[in-house]
């Protein structure tokens, strides 16, 4: 199994480290030709406008969509979640639009309002998950076919799954806890 991490901008190195801890081969993806031999893709946190522009400029978008339509699993964290969304509140920016979710960017506020918090996510087991939110987005609404894996205060949707796509508002790559990555690796395993 080989998982690619989109390496246009943002915290891609941390995702590669996390995948290595899961004993999975991980490679950086900067060009569309590199997408050919991967079984899954992670779109990291960073600035979604920057990542979107570079994705268009270097023709990665169409190829990612084609692979996703053939079942390649994708995990998007923070900016990656924004890239996966069909709708982004108040924004026309480029997105892949693979998930039926309405995302609000910088939804908790600016950096001053960024925070860390322990979450109970049953899909990851009983142990609480320390989640770091950096100028994070959250999901305002989803279609019924989207499975909600975690809500903050029973209201703000921050972790979802739809088909082979997984999206999180927070940054599992910034902590030592690799359970989100392990969850994604299991998803990829099922498609091989």
């Amino acid at each position, binding site marked *: 199994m080989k998982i690619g991490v989109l390496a246009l901008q*943002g915290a891609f190195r941390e995702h590669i480290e996390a995948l290595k801890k899961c004993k999975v081969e991980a490679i950086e993806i900067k060009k569309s030709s590199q997408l050919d031999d991967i079984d899954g893709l992670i779109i990291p946190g960073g*600035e979604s406008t920057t990542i979107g*522009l570079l994705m268009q400029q270097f023709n990665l978008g169409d190829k990612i969509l084609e692979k996703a339509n053939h079942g390649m699993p994708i995990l998007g964290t923070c900016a990656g979640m924004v890239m996966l969304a069909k709708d982004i509140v108040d924004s026309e920016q480029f997105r892949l639009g693979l998930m039926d979710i309405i995302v609000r960017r910088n939804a908790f506020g*600016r950096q001053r309002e960024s*925070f*860390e918090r322990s979450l109970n996510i049953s899909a990851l087991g009983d142990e609480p998950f320390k989640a770091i939110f950096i100028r994070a987005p959250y999901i305002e609404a989803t279609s019924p076919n989207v499975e909600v894996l975690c809500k903050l205060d029973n209201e703000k949707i921050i972790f979802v799954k739809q088909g082979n796509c997984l999206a999180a508002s927070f940054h599992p790559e910034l902590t030592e806890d690799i359970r989100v990555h392990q969850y994604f690796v299991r998803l990829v395993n099922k498609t091989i």
Partner: protein
Amino acid sequence: MSQGTWAVKKGLAEMLKGGVIMDVTTPEQAKIAEEAGACAVMALERVPADIRAAGGVARMADPTIILRIMDAVTIPVMAKARIGHFVEAQILEGLGVDYIDESEVLTPADDLFHINKNLFTVPFICGCRNLGEALRRIGEGAAMIRTKGEPGTGNIVEAVKHFRQVNGELKRLVNLPEEELMTAAKDMGAPYELVKEVHKTGKLPVVNFAAGGIATPADAALMMQLGVDGVFVGSGIFKSGDPAKRARAIVAATTHYNDPQILAEISKDLGEAMVGIEIHNIKTEERMQDRGW
């Protein structure tokens, strides 16, 4: 829920990696920067080249300018406070800027001490010329560092020198036997705890960007190949002939820094670069990099 933790402060810097942070002085410039792919902007009243030309005392920008820039874009907005001017920093935190640059580009407000950055919720970035300076700033609470370079010159030589200095000292530190670390800390003027940490991990504890003199896509790629995490472009964009095109090219170069073919392609027809200054022609007392202690 906890805000302003070390993980949260450092976290934003991690998200900026592989990106370009651009100096802007108006909301229009901020839009151009965002549309060109900047991962953040630095809101200023004047770019360093103009500060250098104007002389006199350079201070924090007018809050109105910073707020208008914050309104204009969705990407993070940074702003500069004078070295040691903790009240300017308090004002910037109150405005809600995403990162504060305690910067040698402005005239220092304190000739002995830097801001106690640990007291703030908002994260700080500081410049450095060597490892001791980097670790002193981190000890004071900076969650991100950058080379100082020589701002407003369009001349990359000082940024290269500062990065190589930090990296060289880092490699030496890693190879020292443990009993020599205290003396190394004394000689560098760096906190012992951080010296021990760097010795153990072999890397800086925070993200390190290049700044001060970057004017072309090749400059950005040079710094990335040397090993920085991302780049600041100050005067280099809006003092050039075609800012939007140059900005896009520098963004692409920062991503594809290892691919000479792409670098050649994006370096074509960028128009006039900013006029550069030879470092030897700057009087010692006018060198911004010597500010900071």
